[in-house]
């Protein structure tokens, strides 16, 4: 009995800490931190305006009341914005990934408090915040680094799990707020009427199609754990996810940007043939869990975009 428990613990541990090339974390850093620049400057420029809103309108979120974050003023918002942009820029170029990475996480959290303490809270950033929290736990790395790392494996696994959990818990929230009968309601029709693009106009006459859509959405969210399956099922599911977000964007103009960015954690980014020379594997035997395979040199993918997996070195890689 004891031995069996030991085995299952080992299995849990080796699943969470499956070593992956450090290069993937290097590329993820570039993507995640560069997105902050886009988020602050392009997607949500209104956040900065909240500093000019009278303090009475500031109703800090729970974490804002527990942690000593100040009431936003134009100066505070300006300093946070400037600091966040500098840290994110440094992060995108992978400078001081631990210290600046941690600082970026704190500043982005404060930025979210500034954004969401005036009425509406967005629900598309669980995975992104997880990414910001875990990336600083991985040592410095460059894009071509093929050494396997358990720390990198854990960080990427956390982002993947956060993406999966986001979908699954969204279905649970529908159950809580909308009830089992949510799928038979007119929620998508409401979205189409309120924010539909010209592509969604024909759907105004097709409530039945929209109801089918509601069934498919819940099915998709409940089965999100399949994203973690390696091989064909995981790849197909990732494709579903991308199509789902693309259709939502085309029809309703809604894109859960930070969440979609985190889907990249399911891709073997280190194998993408951008800016790479012939890659060398620096094997890190100590990082290998007992009984795992010897590290395999991933095929050189110079000059072409390959999104493939290469044995044990690519958990969840597509």
């Amino acid at each position, binding site marked *: 009995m004891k031995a069996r428990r030991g085995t299952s613990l080992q299995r849990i541990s080796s699943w969470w800490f499956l070593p992956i090339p450090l290069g993937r974390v290097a590329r993820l850093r570039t993507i995640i931190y560069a997105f902050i620049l886009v988020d602050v400057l392009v997607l949500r420029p209104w956040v900065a305006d909240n500093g000019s809103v009278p303090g009475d309108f500031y109703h800090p979120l729970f974490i804002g009341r527990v942690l000593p974050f100040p009431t936003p003023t134009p100066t505070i918002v300006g300093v946070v914005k400037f600091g966040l942009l500098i840290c994110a820029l440094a992060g995108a170029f992978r400078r001081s990934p631990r210290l600046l990475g941690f600082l970026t996480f704190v500043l982005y959290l404060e930025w979210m408090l500034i954004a969401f303490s005036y009425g509406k809270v967005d629900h598309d950033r669980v995975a992104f915040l997880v990414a910001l929290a875990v990336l600083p736990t991985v040592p410095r790395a460059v894009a071509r680094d093929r050494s396997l790392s358990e720390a990198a494996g854990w960080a990427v696994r956390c982002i993947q799990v956060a993406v999966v959990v986001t979908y699954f818990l969204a279905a649970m*929230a529908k159950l809580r707020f909308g009830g089992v009968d949510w799928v038979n309601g007119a929620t998508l029709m409401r979205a189409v009427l309120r924010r539909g693009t010209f592509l969604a106009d024909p759907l105004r006459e097709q409530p039945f199609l929209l*109801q089918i859509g509601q069934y498919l959405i819940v099915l998709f969210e409940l089965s999100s754990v399949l994203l973690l399956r390696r091989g064909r099922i995981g790849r197909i599911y990732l494709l579903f996810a991308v199509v789902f977000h693309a259709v939502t964007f085309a029809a309703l103009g809604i894109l859960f940007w930070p969440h979609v960015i985190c889907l990249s954690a399911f891709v073997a980014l280190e194998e993408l043939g951008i800016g790479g020379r012939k890659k060398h594997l620096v094997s890190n035997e100590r990082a290998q869990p007992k009984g795992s395979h010897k590290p395999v040199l991933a095929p050189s993918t110079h000059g072409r975009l390959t999104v493939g997996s290469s044995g044990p070195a690519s958990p969840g890689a597509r």
Partner: protein
Amino acid sequence: MTARGKIARLSVAALTLLALLLGTIVGQDDHFPFGPLRMFSIKNELDGRVRSLEIEGVTESGEVLLVSFEEFGLRRADVEGQLGKLEEAPEDVVEALRRAAERFTPGGPTFVRLRLFERIFVLDNGTPVDQQIETLAVWRSP
């Protein structure tokens, strides 16, 4: 990685998952980032109504334009969240509209009148069959 490092990481992951689960079951938006992921989770009745908040502006030349909230630097959901205030303090909402008008994209049209209204779609078995307009607040340039 040391065993201690692994235990610490696994514990943090487990606690985070637990917080997210709790947030989904009993939490509110206030518990961000652990609150329930409630986007589109409210069920609309097939024979209900759909309300859509909109702004309409009249320019100096008398042209009537539908303005998006983003163009005003506002978010529709934020304004909708504050509609409750309309009954207590309609002047606050009108004031917010006036400020929004001031901030309107430089070089864009100057508005002499702004109207905040709700477009109400009446649904019959899921299909919109009628539209009504309900004016909530109006601002006129002095």
